[in-house]
């Protein structure tokens, strides 16, 4: 299990979702991915994408205008 980070600042949806999807494709079961975004749409779209694909959003934080979602990969 390893931890990874993805910078998706300034990207508008669905780009942060696409970047998350492509990054997760390279990760292994149990890995954690921390995605930092600025488009509030991700609070809706990334969890929806995760539910569809069976991954789990384990933590969501909003600091200033940044949203940080931590995802556990399930494969």
């Amino acid at each position, binding site marked *: 299990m390893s931890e990874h980070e993805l910078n998706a600042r*300034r990207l*508008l*949806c*669905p*780009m942060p*979702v*696409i970047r998350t*999807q492509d990054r997760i494709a390279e990760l292994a079961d149990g890995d954690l991915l921390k995605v930092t975004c*600025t*488009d*509030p*749409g991700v*609070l*809706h*779209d990334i969890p*929806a*994408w995760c*539910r*569809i*694909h069976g991954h789990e959003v384990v933590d969501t934080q909003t600091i200033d*205008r940044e949203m940080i979602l931590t995802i556990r990969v399930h494969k």
Partner: protein
Amino acid sequence: MGKDSNIKQRKAVSLISGGLDSMLATKVVMEQGIHVEGINFFTGFCVEGHTHAIRAKDRKKEKRNNALWVAEQLGIKLHIIDVIEEYKDVVLNPKHGYGQNMNPCLDCKIFMVNKAVAWGWMEENDFDFIITGEVIGQRPKSQRKATMPIIARESGAEDRLLRPLCAKNLPETLPEREGWVNREQLYGFHGRNRKPQIALAESLGIEEYSQPAGGCCFLTDKSYSEKLSDLWQSRGDRDYELDDIMLLKVGRHLRPKPHYKLIISREEGENHYLNGYQHEFTMIRTVSTGGPNALVDGNASEEDLMFAARVVARYGQGRNTDRVVMSIKQPDADLQEVSVKPLPPSEIPESWHV
């Protein structure tokens, strides 16, 4: 071993736009026991989310990506593909021309079906055919009986392309011929009447869906298309970057002179969004009163910038005052503060509005 275990599970990829038709087409095929996964293409022009993300006044509305929402309702996986770069050729050189505005719908459909076919993933994962929600006669130019075989042929999908909502009006396709799906349980919808789709949604227990009025992307929008043409004309080059086409969705666009344009925010969310471009564009901000931020797109001279500051001041709270302090920040220069007289509305002609 039971007889059934020898039957291969057939699989289809469905082009999910987020609208009702592709949702229904997918559901109809799933009901026949086919394993379906969705694919959605992000061209940069999609109506999804952006304007909500940008505009503060829309922030209270639920922000959702309809394609993801549809996939979740249907219980299927959705793969979203970034096609921004490749899609340029579709927008810039559509072999079959444009629709009413800058929408190259027929070429766009061919491109998307082709992407699904050419996408190695489909073959690697043993998918057998492709589904779209097309309906004959639904769109005057791109969804006609004559365009259906063109899409199938030019995309390379040939008879692996199934349109469950109008299949009965079209020649048999591979999945029908092979008995993977039962043609009798497909539909023969045609024309612009939406009642059959609405009735089908009801019979399938689909209560909520989105029905975009114009189409799935900004290229069907008249004012957006005009802004895009203006961009090409002023640059003398038919090309674009993602930031260009995103900025066309934001703010008020005014072109006081052929060689520069102002993108003036209309509210706080847009202000914030435009701020994100301060390192690439010259930025004009209202300092002494509340007011908009504006980007200068083009090659404005010092004189142009002073004039532009007066134009921007006209949209701020100091519009009726004698002087307003504005800041001008060029990417490679120090911030400059200037006191200007806001331009009276009567001196901003309609023809400046892009």
